């Protein structure tokens, strides 16, 4: 690091008056051939290091909402996990650990939680079992929001005394919902109707978590400050800030300078460069995340998606056209794994790996055969196939402009699809537009998109739950609805025998894989990097140091020198 004294030796400091010529020379120098790169570095060297007690995170996209019932972005979930506590949480070993509940006992159709004493909300109101009952009742009774899938078999929730909460289900539960549902304060939320809850912006969230909400500038930054009355071991950080960097280079540069302490998503093209930088530690971790190509199969009247997407033959042909290995190599610079099923290999024996003839990938001959057999053999002069009534097999593809891996995936997909006679037209949009376009329930006006999913829990149920019929309006981004799939989901969630559950989970993945509504393109490697001079003690965890379903790294890091 260059100390502050050395900067006074710089030539321009001796020229207090800037005449036009020196200005022109300076301007020319900075724009000279090698200028761009070294200019950035030069700025970096001059930045003074400010030891801050804030953990400054730099990432690429904005969060959506502070409403824990409706948030769908990983960014939103990440920030809310600091503000809201759950009954249980994941430790750095990705195993369950106590949170608001000190104990959880599962017996038959019930789960009994013993609740912690002396917890208060950020606004000073004492926390009680009533808040837990309210939260679970709201989701369970009304099947409301993104976490409803975990309370699909909900019967009731009760608090026999002020230290105990009992959840009752119609059948035994393989997954403990306490790990995923944030507890909201009844004194703020209980006056609202379910409709008001779904639409509530929750601009000043009140929780019981280790950090309390600070500020939000939409599209720029969110900050939280330490809650000194928190029940757990106080974190060293006085706060956390999450700032949005729309450009990869700027983010990498900010990380090198120490303006950013850690970034959860290093772009693959930048990763190798960061790895060589001694100021930064860059890690490549296995993940519970994938990126996929989704197809609009909404049956809503107002859907203006191409109706041909409902034809499984076309979807499968697109699946056979996709070359996942190429995408890993080119779009991800090798820092990913070619994918298939909706679960990543990190889920162990739950993971379904299609083999032999079952593989739907990089087989243009098969794609052509399927399309010919399905009656799309006529071709236009441009080589694009036509339906019997003369409509071209032409689809629109959307993806987020700043998520360069998705843009590249779409470009590669475009090229391979054209080879089997399907035309894809690419449009890139900003992340806000993307989410509102994809999740437009009444009028989804798109055919194909590219983005991805991070699992919210260390259990297959989260990702498997995404394409459920009940998640239309929640996580379900393709409006897929298959009663057989829904049925299997309910079955597996009640199956306590591991081997039997694995079998059902595998069957679900196979079914969904062959329906080709999702073409899961890659399993991500989490490429994350932190500045060595900021905070110490970051622990590598599968799924990511941060941006994972454990929040413990934020709570346990120590301030550096």
């Amino acid at each position, binding site marked *: 690091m260059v100390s502050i004294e050395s900067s006074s030796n710089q030539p321009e400091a001796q020229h207090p008056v800037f005449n036009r010529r020196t200005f022109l020379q300076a301007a020319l120098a900075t724009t000279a*051939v*090698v200028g*761009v*790169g070294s200019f*950035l570095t030069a700025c970096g060297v001059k930045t003074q290091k400010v030891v801050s007690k804030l953990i400054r995170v730099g990432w690429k996209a904005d969060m959506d909402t502070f409403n824990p019932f409706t948030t769908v972005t990983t960014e939103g979930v990440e920030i809310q996990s600091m503000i809201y506590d759950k009954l249980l949480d994941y430790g750095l070993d990705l195993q369950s650990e106590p949170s608001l509940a000190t104990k959880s006992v599962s017996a038959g159709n019930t789960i009994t939680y013993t609740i912690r004493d002396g917890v208060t909300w950020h606004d000073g109101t004492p926390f009680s079992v009533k808040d837990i009952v309210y939260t679970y009742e709201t989701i369970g009774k009304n099947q409301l929001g993104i976490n409803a899938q975990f309370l699909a078999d909900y019967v009731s929730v009760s608090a026999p005394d002020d230290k105990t909460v009992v959840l009752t289900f119609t059948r035994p539960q393989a997954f403990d919902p306490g790990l995923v549902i944030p507890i909201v304060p009844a004194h703020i939320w209980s006056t609202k109707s379910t409709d008001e809850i779904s639409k509530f912006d929750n601009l000043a969230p009140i929780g019981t978590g280790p950090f309390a909400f600070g500020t939000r500038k939409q599209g720029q930054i969110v900050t939280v400050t330490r809650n000194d009355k928190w029940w757990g071991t106080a974190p060293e950080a006085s706060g956390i800030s999450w700032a949005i960097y729309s*450009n*990869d*280079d700027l983010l*990498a*540069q900010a990380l090198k300078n120490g303006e950013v302490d850690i970034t959860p998503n290093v*772009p693959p*093209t*930048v990763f190798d*460069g960061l790895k060589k930088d001694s100021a930064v530690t860059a890690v490549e971790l296995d993940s519970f995340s994938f990126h996929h190509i989704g197809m609009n199969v909404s049956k809503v009247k107002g859907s203006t998606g191409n109706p041909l997407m409902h034809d499984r033959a076309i979807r499968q042909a697109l699946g056979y056209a996709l070359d996942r290995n*190429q995408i890993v*190599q*080119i*779009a*991800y*610079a*090798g*820092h990913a794994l070619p994918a298939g099923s909706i679960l990543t290999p990190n889920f162990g024996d739950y993971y379904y790996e299609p083999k032999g003839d079952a593989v739907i990938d990089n087989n243009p001959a098969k794609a052509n055969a399927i399309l010919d057999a399905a009656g799309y053999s006529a071709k236009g002069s441009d080589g694009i196939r036509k339906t019997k009534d003369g409509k071209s097999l032409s689809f629109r593809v959307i993806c987020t*402009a*700043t998520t*360069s891996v998705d*843009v*590249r995936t779409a*470009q*590669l997909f*475009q*090229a*391979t699809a*054209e*080879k089997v006679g399907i035309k894809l*037209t*690419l*449009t*890139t949009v900003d992340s806000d537009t993307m989410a509102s376009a994809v999740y437009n329930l009444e009028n989804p006006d798109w055919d194909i998109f590219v983005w991805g999913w991070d699992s919210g829990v260390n259990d297959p149920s989260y990702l498997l739950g995404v394409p459920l019929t009940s998640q239309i309006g929640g996580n379900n981004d393709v409006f897929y609805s298959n009663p057989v799939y829904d049925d299997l989901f309910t079955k597996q969630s009640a199956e306590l025998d591991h081997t039997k559950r694995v079998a059902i989970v595998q069957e679900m993945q196979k079914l969904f894989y062959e329906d080709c509504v999702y073409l899961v393109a890659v399993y991500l490697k989490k490429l994350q990097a932190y500045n060595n001079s900021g905070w110490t003690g970051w622990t590598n965890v599968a799924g990511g140091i941060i941006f994972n379903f454990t929040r413990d790294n934020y709570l346990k890091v120590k301030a550096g020198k």
Partner: protein
Amino acid sequence: MSRKDATLTTHGFKYFLRKLWRDPMGRWGLLILLITSFVAVICPIFFPFDPSKVGVDASSILTGPSQTHWLGSDELGRDVLRQFFSGARISLFVGIMATIISTIVGSGIGVFAGYYMGRLDGFLMRITDFFLVVPALPLMIALGAIFGQNITVIIMVIGFLSWPRTARIVRSQTLSLRQRQFVPRAKSLGSTNLRIIRTHITPHVMPLIVANTILVVAGCILSEATLSFIGLGDPDRISWGTMLHFSFVSGAIGRGAWWYFLPPGFGILFIVLGFTLVGHSFEKITNPRHRGES
């Protein structure tokens, strides 16, 4: 009729070209334009760019200049030099098409406003003033975002927002021509207004329109580059601006992949410089007030 048209006969153009070549500014501009049109028109025929011809693996992306890729490869492992050639074509095409729209709209409004004067003039000029003060770039961004990333949309958006200056200039020239003797004379011989505009006014304002058009092309190419750079370009038709956009978002600048962002950057610089030099030189030749200065 035939005598008035003489301003635009081949003889006239030869005269202008000779004049341009004698002016150092015009000569440099012409040379630059010749080179860029060669790059845009001839090079893509011999080195066509196939966007689906991507690299084989991770080691083939953003590689430096080599035997196989003279100007290195991009973030998908595609040849940058070929992309540069076809990008020139798109940039030039969008610039010229947009200019044609802008010129037709601009000179049409200018001539009619200047010739008819009075209320029509007032009405047309207020519209022109409106478009003159509207911040064009933000409006282009907004319109581009609404109507989508399509090359036709981009041409329309740029074309319909770049005409006011042309309209102003053409109107003032027409106003002065309108006062000349030949207008009432033609009228007394029974010429209709439209005929006078077509045969007497338009040929006289033509040199002015041409000079202005050349300058507008430069502006339109820059506008296209700007729109494409911020991500509103047609991702299926790669122009120089789109190349800059993709090099920016793929981290080519931080990686020091100069072969990816310098060629389109300098390409835009040269093409705009070329049109600007020729435009100014042409203006000098046609504007009597500048005569003798050069």
